[in-house]
């Protein structure tokens, strides 16, 4: 079977639009008949990554490839980058501003959630250049 390929623009700092790419991927998986537990893991991992692009990355693009037994999600931004990835992965660590936290974001649990729900999570980042997050979720 050919894989399905999608690309979505994610606007930076736009919180009413945030999550549209994850939503679209979720509906596609639903139509394909993927198990709801798998969809939940994909959707949450991708939403957390999408939100990070919106909040911290100034927006970017989401590149999606869906195979019969797994999905690959690449989230690419050209924002400020992450100085210390290990520190960023620490549960509770967040650099989000108060106004972001007032929206319910910025708990510092986004990357830990992505790690929890993804089968593979890889982060490449360079300060001042940008961040690429690779998420793979296997369908069970």
């Amino acid at each position, binding site marked *: 079977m050919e894989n399905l390929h999608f690309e979505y623009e994610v606007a930076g700092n736009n*919180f*009413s639009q*945030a*999550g549209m790419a*994850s*939503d679209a991927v*979720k509906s596609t998986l639903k139509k394909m008949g993927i198990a*709801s537990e798998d969809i*939940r893991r994909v*959707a*949450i991992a991708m*939403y*957390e990554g999408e939100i990070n692009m919106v909040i911290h990355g100034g927006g970017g693009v989401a590149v999606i490839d869906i195979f019969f037994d797994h999905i690959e999600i690449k989230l690419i931004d050209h924002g400020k980058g992450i100085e210390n990835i290990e520190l960023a992965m620490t549960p509770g660590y967040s650099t989000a501003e108060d106004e972001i936290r007032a*929206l*319910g*974001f*910025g*708990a*510092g*649990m*986004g990357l*830990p*959630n992505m790690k*929890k729900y993804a089968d593979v999570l890889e982060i490449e980042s360079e300060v001042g250049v940008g961040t690429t997050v690779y998420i793979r979720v296997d369908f069970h």
Partner: protein
Amino acid sequence: MKLSKLIDALKATKVNVVDKDFEVTKGYCGDFLSFVMGKAPSGCAWFTVMTNINVCAVATLAEVGVIVVCEGAKSTPELVDKAKAQDVNLIETKYDIFEAVKRYIAAEA
């Protein structure tokens, strides 16, 4: 318990009730969206004071059964529209989260 029973117990306003016979079996309290996505059980009643549009997105992702906006907080129009568009149960109660949960437990017993 059925959602309709929870609505009575909380003297709640039905902002968007898709299925009043929905069976609520669990609960989750919290306002940080990532905690909800990491921990809220599927089909739960989610007690929160957050009212922005992202609440609905997270409820859908985490498969929350009903959003319970507490403390007399009012859902933003964007949240209401999104809940209607996505068929998400959304109710509001004047009680604070502690009181709302006490009433939930009492109604369940």
